[in-house]
């Protein structure tokens, strides 16, 4: 257990080495937010659509942009690198479980991103554009839970993509495709309320909505209590499913490596 924790700390320290550049990332986030908000201003004007006005969309955009900073989908980059250099063998030899090791490593990076990128982006965004407070204090815990679910689901998806590399040596195509799906169905650019009917149904069947839409909707009080519990439960289901698939694929990947004399 300590080994994983210390890996997280190591990865945190490694990220700290780049902290001088963090203002560039924050600046980039703010510019991105600014563009989003300009679009919503042009689309909504001073009126409301589906009970949502410009101030709501500003809050929605800030929440989504902030949340994306601590998603763990990019774990596949690490595995790609490790496979390519052969460094992965070193990990397999150690008495550590590689998936947990990966998670610990990502968690360390996330801790860094949370402190040095997310909080400043959130603060600057709130100051510049105006962030609404959480709709009800009752929603704080569900909101926090949904954020944690988002992190786990994003890790699960990234991990599955990474495992594909064991067979195809590259995650390039799958990565682009999944990132495209996330762009559309996470709701990070367009909330699901604005989707056409069939698209809403599809979006609710996919796990991507948890990566932006669900936490934001809970925060903004756009979900009834029933809907909140439903979504949290479905979120947990996705985590179990992704974890199960991940374990299965990992086992298969190990066998494949062994067969290839790795």
């Amino acid at each position: 257990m300590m080994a994983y924790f210390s890996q997280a700390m190591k990865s945190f320290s490694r990220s700290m080495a780049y902290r001088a550049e963090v203002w560039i990332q924050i600046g980039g986030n703010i510019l991105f937010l600014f563009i989003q908000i300009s679009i919503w201003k042009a689309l909504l004007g001073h009126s409301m659509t589906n009970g949502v006005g410009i101030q709501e969309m500003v809050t929605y955009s800030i929440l989504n942009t902030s949340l994306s900073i601590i998603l763990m989908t990019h774990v596949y980059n690490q595995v790609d690198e490790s496979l390519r250099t052969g460094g992965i063998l070193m990990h397999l030899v150690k008495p550590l479980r590689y998936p947990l090791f990966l998670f610990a490593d990502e968690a360390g990076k996330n801790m860094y991103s949370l402190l040095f990128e997310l909080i400043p982006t959130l603060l600057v965004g709130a100051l510049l554009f105006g962030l609404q407070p959480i709709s009800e204090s009752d929603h704080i815990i569900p909101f926090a839970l949904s954020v944690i679910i988002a992190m786990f689901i994003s890790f699960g998806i990234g991990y599955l993509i990474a495992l594909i590399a064991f067979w195809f040596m590259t995650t390039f195509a799958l990565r682009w495709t999944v990132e495209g799906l996330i762009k559309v169905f996470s709701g990070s650019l367009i909330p699901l309320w604005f989707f056409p009917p069939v698209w809403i149904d599809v979006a609710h069947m996919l796990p991507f909505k948890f990566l932006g839409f669900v936490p934001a909707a809970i925060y903004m009080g756009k979900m009834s209590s029933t809907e909140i519990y439903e979504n949290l439960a479905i979120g947990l289901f996705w985590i179990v499913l992704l974890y199960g698939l991940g374990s299965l694929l990992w086992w298969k990947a190990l066998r494949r490596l062994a067969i290839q004399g790795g």
Partner: protein
Amino acid sequence: MSLPLFLRFVLYKYKSIMEYRGAFLVGVWGQGLGYLADFVVLRLLVQKFQTINGWEWPEIALLVSINVLTYAMGATFFYHMTNFDSLVISGGFDRYLTSPLPPLIHLCANQFNIGYIAHYIVAGSFFIWSLVQLQADWTVGTLFFLIVILISGGLMHAAAFIFLGSWAFIFTRSRFLFTLYGALRNFTSYPLSIYGFFIQTLLTFGIPFAFINYYPSAVILSKEEGIFPVWLGFLAPFVALVCFALALRMWGYGVKRYQSAGG
């Protein structure tokens, strides 16, 4: 460098990539789907709100596809500029100085990037589709203008890449500039008129990215909006040439400085 020689470089690139044809094609597919997502998001937005500041879906599609196409054109020749600082540090640039070809042209030939096929296919399709949808009174003049626009847009992106490379050459790799370039490209994915005075001025007179796709599109679509007159679109080729010339100037200065420093 003669054109046949340049094409030969390109052919070798193509051949080496085609050795892994399967992987390459799958990659193109995947990337294509990823880019398709950008268009899907815009489509959903316009479907819900009918227009973005008066721009309907085919018009938005035109705007974005010009942005992506011209970016792909510039990147095909000049994407290597984003890693140029590593080349300099590793000393790899020196052999370009000792060859009989001008270093920049040699770099382009050697580092020609054929990986932008997905961009061309997706953006190209939307470009053609939107033009068909828009059914304006297309004349030979309009078509000629469109081709000129694409080339001048490509030149502007090329100028941006060369600028990034030269900067890395003279100073150090600037992640700030790179992020800024990405942000500006994002800005110009939407009609300039949605932004306030500052951004409109910046993108017209400061870093004139609005001349890549916005003003030319506004001219073609006969838009009347924004702070600055839409006929600026006709100036796009001149703006592009000036930017490209300035970028080449900076590059030349960088090379001279590097050589005189005993590089």
